[in-house]
């Protein structure tokens, strides 16, 4: 190894093809990785502070503004938490509709990440627009797949970004049976396109890089987890959502405007598609399982660079599941259940495209929010990202800086990090000095 490569700094001041503003800093001294920072400098927006004093029905619309890429995740976690506080359970056709719109968000978000944000790295392009100069049909397929997801969001939510139709207890308006059935045709095309996507990404070349993560995801008795379940891990965690804060601790580090999460007594863990997949392979639809097998994925994938394949498998699942639910849909009598407020604390956790998103609210008898806590997926993955980078770089100290920098960016993009989300949950308690 040339001496200048034994001591150097790998640095990206503004990460591209991620949502939000972050930077990366890796220091190598004497042939050892001495420091790794995923720096989140996106300014905080203080949601948890200004939710205090708002009405319990307002959290759905307000928290969706944390993230324009996964607003449904915020709306569903908030609605679940409020319904939990008020002792109401939404099931039947309203539950199905929630799953369908959430499938729409998975399709939109995964297609965005697979085609526009991540694939260019594997093929050596700076962007999907560059990729399209050589492979226009492939990028078109990705855009149309994304459009199919957005179509579901718009049909059930009114629009793609910050949908307006979700409320505590259900929806403002539910579609007629024929309105929803009309969504099936584009989804059938999308399901085929998703299968093509799995084949396409499975042929990319992946660095040999397996990590022994503790993976955490929801687990439901019968469904591949989206809107509910228990929290389970690959190392035996099995808790109700309301116990989340007993097992997860958050710390504030100087280089990040987002809190780092860790499992009490064990440390780093991983959330997102790889965790969902590893813990719920048996809950995937037969078609999605078959696609995974064809792509050469086992029931557990530990190489974060292959998360793009897992995301593609989830694209197949989301299309398949939405189609199944659309087929059995009968318009419910009411668009929402009554959810009268009561003084209580409620917990909600759903599977955002990037992993579990936890909300907790304490409300008073009139429904006013007294306290709010939100833990987004990217702040839970920060430690895993930094640990990946440290190991990845340590094994590749010979790489020239340009190649090393690009591959490190790719390693960060493995997580589809949503920095806007992570930052906006800077939640801090008053420290008594």
């Amino acid at each position, binding site marked *: 190894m040339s001496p200048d490569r034994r001591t150097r700094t790998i640095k990206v001041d*503004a990460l*591209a*093809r*991620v*949502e*939000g503003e972050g930077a990366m800093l890796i220091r190598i001294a004497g042939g050892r990785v001495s420091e790794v920072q995923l720096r989140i400098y*996106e*300014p*905080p*927006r*203080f*949601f*948890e*502070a*200004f939710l205090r004093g*708002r*009405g319990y029905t*307002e959290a759905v*619309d*307000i928290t969706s*503004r*944390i*993230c*324009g*890429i996964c607003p449904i995740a915020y709306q569903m976690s908030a609605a679940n938490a409020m319904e939990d506080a008020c002792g109401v359970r939404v099931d039947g056709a309203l539950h199905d509709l929630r799953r369908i719109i959430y499938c729409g968000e998975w399709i939109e978000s995964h297609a*965005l990440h697979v085609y*526009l944000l991540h694939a260019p790295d594997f093929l050596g392009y*700076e*962007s*999907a*627009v*560059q990729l*399209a100069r050589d492979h*226009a049909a492939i990028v*078109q397929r990705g*855009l149309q797949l*994304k*459009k199919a997801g*957005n179509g579901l969001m718009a049909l059930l939510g*009114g*629009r*793609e*970004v*910050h949908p*307006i139709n979700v*409320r505590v207890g259900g929806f*403002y*308006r539910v579609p007629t049976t024929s309105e929803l059935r009309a969504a099936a045709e584009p989804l059938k095309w999308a399901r085929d396109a998703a299968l093509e996507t799995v084949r396409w990404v499975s042929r990319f070349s992946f660095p040999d890089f397996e990590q022994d993560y503790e993976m955490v995801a929801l687990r439901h008795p019968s469904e591949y987890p989206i809107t509910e379940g228990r929290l389970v891990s690959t190392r035996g965690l099995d808790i109700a959502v309301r116990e989340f804060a007993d097992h997860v601790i958050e710390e*504030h580090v*100087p280089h990040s*405007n987002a809190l780092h999460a860790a499992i009490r007594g064990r440390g780093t863990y991983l959330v997102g598609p790889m965790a969902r997949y590893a813990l719920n392979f048996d809950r995937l639809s037969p078609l999605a399982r078959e696609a995974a097998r064809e792509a050469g994925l086992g029931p557990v994938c530990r190489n974060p660079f292959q998360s793009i394949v897992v995301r593609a498998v989830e694209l197949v699942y989301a299309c398949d599941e939405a189609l199944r639910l659309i087929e059995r849909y009968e318009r419910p009598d009411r668009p929402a259940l009554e959810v009268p407020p009561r003084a209580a604390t409620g917990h909600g956790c759903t599977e955002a495209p990037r992993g579990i998103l936890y909300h907790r609210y304490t409300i008073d008898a009139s429904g006013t929010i007294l306290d709010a806590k939100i833990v987004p997926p990217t702040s839970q993955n920060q430690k895993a990202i930094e640990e990946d980078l440290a190991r990845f770089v340590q094994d590749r100290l010979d790489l020239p800086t340009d190649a090393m920098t690009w591959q490190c*960016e790719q390693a960060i993009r493995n997580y589809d990090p*949503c920095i*806007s989300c992570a930052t*906006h949950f*800077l939640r*801090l*308690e*008053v*420290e008594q000095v």
Partner: protein
Amino acid sequence: MARAQRQKPRLAVWKFASCDGCQLTVLNLEDELLPLAGEVEIAHFLEASRATARGPYDLSLVEGSITTAHDAERIRQIRERSRFLVTIGACATAGGIQALRNFKDVKEFISIVYARPEYIATLDRSTPIADHVQVDFELRGCPIDRGQLLEVLTAFLHGRRPNIPAHSVCVECKRRGVVCVMVARGVPCLGPVTHAGCGALCPAHDRGCYGCFGPMETPNTASLSAWWRKLGVTDDGLVRAFRTFNANAPEFRKESERHEP
């Protein structure tokens, strides 16, 4: 002598404090994105590309509000390098939901929120881009509407003003044939004072407008508040209704202040 090949206009997309949803709207132009990329050079758009060019830019789209001293400086530099600068969305045009901090006693607010203030730099107010630099056009909405975004892009690329009506959501309801939720069902609705652009989405889904496009041109907010009172909405309810994603827009700010205890 043959003229040099006509240079494509250079487009840049910038982010400040925001949720990313408005710049995502550019990528949500699924049918138009590749043709657009043929018409313009995407010179800076970090969410989409790691390749960046320093400028100057013909058109800069700016998402997000100014909440740090660093960002206040950054927007001045972007302005200097941009021929036209268009702000997109409620954060950039009004300060966004993060402008709710503007109504609080700052010290108290910070003491609630910060564990380690020394790690974080933030201003005590969230302000729209136009408070800092000259803005050529403001496109409203939380989020912006993609049809309107396309109109703005087309207009600037052809050197004309965008055709974005400044009337209220009420007009959109009438056009869409939506029965008035407030008159027919007594549902409080901000439509009469809210800028058009969404296509009357909320009333079409049986709910009142919540004002995510901000104030229309010369809104009569006081009159609407009086109607809301008749429907049983309290002062506190009025304050909260006017203080969401466009809380810092002058007309909504003033109206909310009128109902403060």
